[in-house]
């Protein structure tokens, strides 16, 4: 029997997954529709919650809903009526709003810092809610198991009515954002300007809180009150990695919210005992990690690659400059600007000047070879090509102009100027160069001014290498 069970269960799971994926069940369709609508709304509201820096206020609001649910349930038991969901949700909305308002009041009148006020309200309201639930359990009238699903969320409990509510809230939120986009923007960006222009900042803040309460109420059943805030904050924070534009941020955040809910709800249905709130939040977190690494505007991967590329470009210039100065110290520079040189430079000398390892110098050299700026011989000798010569000359000119500027006008010591110029020369823009040329070289014709300090490779008595490369 055991063996038989083990054999058939994966098949069963497969067929269940198949049924889910193809939306064959009415229930699946309802759950998906409900959660996707919720996810989109959360994503939209979350953007403004995040930009107004009120993310934790949303958390306090959602935790405060539990008291309302418990009290309304107690009341329905006392008057002997059946609990109906809509009444419970109204209770949740009222106590959630009260929670949010008490944070603002505590901060304003009791002169308590906002983070402390949030901590107090969140824990007191939630604590009262938990206590109330345990009292209800003792009374044991009716089935309170349904109430606990408000804490962690139970996606299968979603009904057609919930979908209608979610759709209505989405429409209202979308209309508010479309109509009052500019008002919400100025509220979030510059509250002092908003006040000075006479906008009712308090009213706009209340509108934002009302939207948060609405989303929280819709999310209670599917996500649960502990995690419903995550569905607002995570998609919005993820969207910021993809764009610098508020409109696009709203769209992306809505999409990510909807997607997290769809995938998370499916996952919760497949792994039967997993609370949907958890799977949805984990999916959102997955999208966050994806955005964090791959996001086109701020993703860490692109930033890393960009910086790595920049560093490499600087190393190319350093090597070219080292070659040029090597030739210069041997008085072996080509006479005319366009002429190329046949002089060979030992890679070891370049590595020594730059304090690079031999291996690293060879690597940079071979990459420059591939770009046609130098020719790297098999024995490790380098030769600048005509193009390489031009670039080397430019790099040296920039470096020396900056170095001289540092010494003449920023009062840097000789060695210091060299190092500082080394660092700064890569940030030079054409206009800086023009100015430097004016102020330091005073428009003197030679493209490359002489080095203001003895070159490190200027060792007059240095003999040719014993192994005789020439």
């Amino acid at each position, binding site marked *: 029997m055991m063996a038989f069970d083990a054999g058939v269960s994966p098949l069963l799971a497969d067929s269940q997954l198949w049924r889910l994926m193809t939306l064959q069940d009415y229930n699946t369709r309802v759950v998906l529709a409900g959660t996707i609508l919720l996810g989109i709304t959360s994503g939209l509201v979350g953007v403004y919650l995040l930009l107004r820096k009120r993310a934790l206020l949303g958390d306090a609001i959602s935790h405060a809903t539990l008291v309302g649910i418990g009290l309304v349930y107690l009341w329905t038991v006392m008057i002997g009526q059946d609990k109906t969901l809509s009444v419970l949700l109204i209770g949740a909305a009222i106590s959630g709003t009260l929670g949010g308002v008490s944070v603002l009041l505590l901060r304003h009148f009791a002169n308590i810092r906002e983070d402390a006020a949030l901590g107090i309200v969140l824990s007191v309201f939630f604590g009262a809610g938990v206590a109330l639930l345990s009292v209800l359990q003792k009374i044991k009238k009716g089935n309170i198991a349904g109430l606990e699903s408000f804490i962690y969320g139970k996606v299968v409990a979603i009904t057609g009515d919930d979908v209608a509510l979610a759709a209505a809230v989405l429409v209202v939120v979308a209309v508010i954002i479309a109509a009052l986009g500019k008002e919400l923007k100025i509220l979030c960006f510059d509250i002092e300007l908003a006040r000075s222009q006479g906008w009712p900042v308090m009213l706009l803040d209340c509108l934002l809180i009302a939207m948060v309460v609405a989303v929280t109420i819709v999310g209670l059943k599917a996500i649960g009150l502990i995690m419903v805030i995550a569905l607002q904050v995570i998609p919005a924070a993820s969207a910021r990695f993809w764009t610098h534009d508020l409109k696009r*941020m709203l769209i992306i955040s809505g999409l990510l919210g909807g997607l997290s809910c769809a995938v998370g709800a499916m996952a919760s249905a497949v792994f039967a005992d997993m609370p949907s709130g958890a799977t949805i939040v984990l999916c959102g977190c997955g999208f966050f990690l994806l955005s964090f690494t791959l996001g086109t505007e701020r993703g860490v991967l692109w930033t890393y690659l960009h910086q790595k590329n920049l560093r490499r470009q600087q190393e190319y210039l350093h090597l070219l400059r080292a070659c040029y100065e090597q030739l210069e110290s041997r008085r072996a520079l080509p006479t005319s600007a366009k002429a190329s040189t046949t002089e060979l430079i030992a890679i070891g000398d370049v590595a020594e000047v730059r304090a690079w390892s031999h291996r690293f110098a060879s690597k940079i050299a071979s990459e420059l070879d591939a770009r046609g700026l130098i020719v790297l011989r098999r024995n490790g000798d380098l030769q600048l090509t005509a193009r390489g010569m031009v670039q080397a000359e430019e790099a040296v000119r920039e470096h020396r102009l900056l170095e001289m500027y540092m010494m003449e006008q920023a009062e840097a010591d000789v060695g210091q100027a060299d190092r500082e110029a080394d660092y700064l020369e890569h940030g030079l823009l054409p206009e800086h160069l023009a100015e430097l040329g004016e102020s330091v070289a005073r428009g003197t014709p030679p493209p490359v001014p002489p080095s203001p300090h003895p070159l490190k490779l200027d060792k007059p008595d240095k003999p040719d290498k014993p192994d005789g490369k020439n």
Partner: protein
Amino acid sequence: MQSSPPASDIPLSIRDLTVAYHRKPVLWNVTLDIPDGKLVGLVGPNGAGKSTLLKAIIGMVPKISGAIRIFGQSYAESRAQVAYVPQRETVDWDFPATALDVVLMGTYGRLGWFRRAGKVERDAAHEALAKMEIEHLAGRQISQLSGGQQQRTFLARALVQNAKLFLMDEPFAAVDAATERAIVSLMKDLQTTGSTIVVVHHDLHTVPEYFDHLVLLNTRLVGAGPTSAVFTERNLQKTYGGKLTLLEEIGEAMKRRDQRSKL
């Protein structure tokens, strides 16, 4: 002390203004008239209530007593004629917006509820950015602007408000020399077109050069009037009350002023 009622025909008239934060007085009995078309420096030590004075003028902090009239009206009535420029650090420059978006916010006040910024507003915003010499940065993300460019964006935003009275809170704080020059020339331009500009300022050295009218403030009003009459060693000593490092600075400022007047 019984003061005359606030004057009605001048940009800014303040009578017996007292403001306190949590009972600690920040402004005491300030009575002040700013004449039309002046470029006014508002100077005093840290904590003297300079920013608070600006905020009290636009009704952002509650006053305990006193009266403020702007062109003879309350702030609520004269709002359209006033442009307030907050300190640059009061906003989060990481906000998802371009320089143009920020400048457009200056037009929100006259647009009113629901109406969006259209072509007229956009053109005005571009023009204001051009005046601040940063039109090429219109599409730039504000987090990628330098400090000076951010300050110019703020001033461009004030420009599109078409105001007659400008209240600027430390526009010179932490900006580069080029931006400082641009701001000064903007203020002089505004003055020639008949605007009145009140600027919270910290650098005593530049006071005689930048401002033709001066208000010295240290919780109480120490002095107000033409710079040449008010910017005296005695007044500065009263304003900065015995802070030695500051006295040194003032001595330096006085020296410079004397040198300048000889030229």
